[in-house]
């Protein structure tokens, strides 16, 4: 019920000054920020919206693609090989920027939703979102594929085909589960509307992911005052050791 109310509120908003696209996205989010607290165990984000159009409905079916992209960070991909019977790292590729999280939800199978040309132009698919320049090995393709494979297995990258529900080419909604191991930062959220695989309209917003409370304080302290933080850790360890020893003796003597 609340979802519907929020949606109605959004629909009532005045039209924004945008390029003269025939169809525009009006978007809602169940939350525009994710707070990482002590009991944080992942978060479900509900993305919903409506398509506002000035013209009559076209014959070709409309498709919706939703992407959420975490902060880009460099990552080193290493490959092991057997040397003298022992598996050791022999080759590496430094990927300059790979999103720490990337989720794509579409309203149709990927092939129908967008063409390769449009994917290249708008950087929609996972492999387009990874940037790697100056690779030192011949088969650097294998390394970026491995990066995608490992991150897909751990749930950091996901392609959810047919996960966007589209009603009468006007209302759409999807739910994306974000895992617990999120990196802090701005998560770019994009919506693409496509017809025949061509992007006809797009919309972008940001979901902020940040640590709060105790998590924020500890993280900040460890970066700003590392010596103090280290001493605090040791003091805590000593106190706990002494406390347990004293408690154990009290229990046994009674």
């Amino acid at each position, binding site marked *: 019920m609340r979802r519907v109310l929020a949606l109605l509120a959004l629909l009532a908003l005045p039209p924004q000054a945008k390029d003269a696209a025939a169809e525009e996205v009006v978007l809602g989010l169940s939350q525009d920020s994710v707070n990482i607290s002590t009991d944080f165990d992942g978060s479900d984000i509900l993305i919903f919206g409506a398509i506002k159009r000035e013209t009559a409905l076209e014959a070709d079916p409309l498709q919706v693609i939703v992407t959420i992209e975490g902060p880009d*960070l460099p990552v*080193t*991909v290493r490959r092991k090989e057997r040397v003298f019977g*022992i598996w050791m790292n022999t080759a590496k590729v430094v990927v300059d920027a790979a999103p720490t999280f990337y989720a794509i939800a579409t309203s149709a199978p990927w092939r129908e939703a967008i063409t390769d040309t449009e994917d290249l132009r708008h950087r929609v698919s996972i492999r387009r979102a990874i940037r790697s320049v100056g690779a030192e090995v011949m088969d650097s393709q294998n390394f970026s594929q*491995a990066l995608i494979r490992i991150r897909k297995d751990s749930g950091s990258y996901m392609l959810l085909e047919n996960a966007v529900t589209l009603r009468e080419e006007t209302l759409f909604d999807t739910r994306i589960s974000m895992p617990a191991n999120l990196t802090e930062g701005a998560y770019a959220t994009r919506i693409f509307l496509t017809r025949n695989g061509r992007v006809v309209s797009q919309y972008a917003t940001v979901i902020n992911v940040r640590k709060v409370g105790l998590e924020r304080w500890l993280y900040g302290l460890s970066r700003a005052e590392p010596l103090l933080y280290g001493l605090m850790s*040791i003091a805590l360890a000593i106190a*706990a*050791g002494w406390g347990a020893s004293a408690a154990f003796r009290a229990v046994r003597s009674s």
Partner: protein
Amino acid sequence: MQIYLPISEVAVNAFLLLGLGGLVGVLSGMFGVGGGFLLTPLLFFIGIPPSVAVATGANQIVAASFSGLLAHLRRKTVDLRMGTVLLSGGLVGAAIGVWLFNYLKTLGQVDLMVRLCYVLFLGVVGGLMFVESLNALRKARRGAPSKRKKHTWVHALPLKMRFRTSGLYISVIPPVLVGCAVGVLSAIMGVGGGFIMVPAMIYLLGMPTKVVVGTSLFQIIFVAGFTTLLHATTNYTVDVMLAVLLILGGVIGAQFGTAIGTKMKAEQLRILLAGLVLLVCAKIALELLLTPSEVYSLTPGAE
């Protein structure tokens, strides 16, 4: 109950961490080892980033060892004098070890080196200890007094010092060297070094087993504390939240471990520790030899 760890940036079950800490704590109290050689690989296994696991493991070792040390102090089974001599060598060794670690890092094979170190030292130490304690156990059963060699080259060195608690009158050079060697290894392998220290004290220095455990714990506290500080200030990888949970389990476990340890025969203790060391050694060796399911691995950042 899931709990989010601020430095590791993962959510882990809190009771799992308490249990892990408790298990390692029991071993720590029983054998006088910090348990780092066991805890660090276990933390990798549940998905803690390796750098955080090594640093936080060191912090947990401080707590467990301190709890165990207090129990041993009450029983007067700590040779403080010997501990201080070992420690002076240990801190020098740790500093050398950190330098060596960074040097290996520039060569790009630090992970392999650490694993090979584990296999080599765990294998040799575990094997020697296993054989020796089996022999001792057999002798004890036959009723013959288990006699240790009274005079070795160790006793011919200068700078002699009397260690009353251990009942020794030996040169300070071997303990300082032992401490130093253990310090180097513990900095490279990210452990307190108890599993090397304990056998070294028994077989090289000829200390009585009862005193060895407490003295080892005394020494480990400082080496592990030093390592914690070093990691906190250079790599920012000590996770207090993770440490607190491990510590809570660990300190309680250590008390039980100490109680169990005093009820067992020295030879039995040693044979159990040897078995455990060999088990961990075999696991790491298999990882190096068997074909991994994924030959690619990811490390955050550009190195």
